[in-house]
C-alpha cells in the first residue's frame, strides 16, 4: 500500500519517500523520491515547492503554480 496524504492533510516541510506516494492534500516544501517509485499528484492536491522523483504522475487539471517538478513527468486524466 502506498503512502497517502489525504485531502484534509496539510504538511509543511521536507519529505523523503522510498515507496509510492499519493498526494491529495496540501504540501508546502520539498518531496524527494529515493527509489524507483511513483509520486502521484491528484487533481485536488495543492502543492507549493519542489517534487523530485523517478516518476511524477500529475492528474489533468492539477494546480502546479509555484511548483517545480523533476524526473519523468507523466500527465494523467
Amino acid at each position: 500500500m502506498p503512502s497517502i496524504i489525504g485531502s484534509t492533510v496539510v504538511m509543511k516541510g521536507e519529505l523523503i519517500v522510498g515507496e509510492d506516494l499519493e498526494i491529495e492534500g496540501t504540501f508546502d516544501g520539498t518531496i524527494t523520491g529515493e527509489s524507483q517509485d511513483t509520486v502521484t499528484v491528484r487533481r485536488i492536491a495543492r502543492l507549493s515547492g519542489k517534487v523530485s522523483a523517478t516518476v511524477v504522475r500529475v492528474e489533468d487539471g492539477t494546480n502546479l503554480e509555484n511548483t517545480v517538478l523533476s524526473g519523468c513527468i507523466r500527465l494523467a486524466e
Partner: protein
Amino acid sequence: MFNKKKEEYSEYERSEPAVPSAPDVRRRKTSVIGPTLKFKGELSANEDLIIEGEIEGTIAHQDKNLTVGKEGRVRADINARTVEIYGQVDGDIRGEDIVKLAKSADVKGNIHCARIVMEDGARFSGNIDMGQKMKPASKPTSLPIAESAKQAESAG
C-alpha cells in the same frame, strides 16, 4: 469481577495495529505515512492517520484517530481524539478521548488524556495527567480494546 479467566481478557493481548486494506483506506478517509517515508516539519489533518514512517516536528490532529504503527517513529507532540501507539514516540501525547500504549510501544513524554490503556511490556517515561474531562460514554471509539473493556465492565 475478579474471577474472570485469562481467556476473557484475550482482547487485551492484541498488540498489532489494525492496518486497513487499500480500499478501506479510501472508504474511511485515512492517510497513511508509509514505513519508508520521512517527514520533518508541520503536519495537520482532519482525518484518521496511520504513521509507519518517521515524523519529526509538530502534529496537530484533533478530533480524529491517530495510530503510530510498530515501525513508526515520531519525534513530535501529538494531539488527537484517540491515540494508539505501537511504535516509538518522543514527545507529549494529548488524547481527547483515550490513549493506548501497546506492548511494543516506547514513549518518552507526558500523556494527557481522559482514559488510558497500557499493555504489559509497554515502555513509558514521563507523567500521565488524566485531569481532562471525560467524553460521554455514548460516543463510539474505534479502539477495539476500549470496546472490550466496556463489555467486560457490563458483564462483570
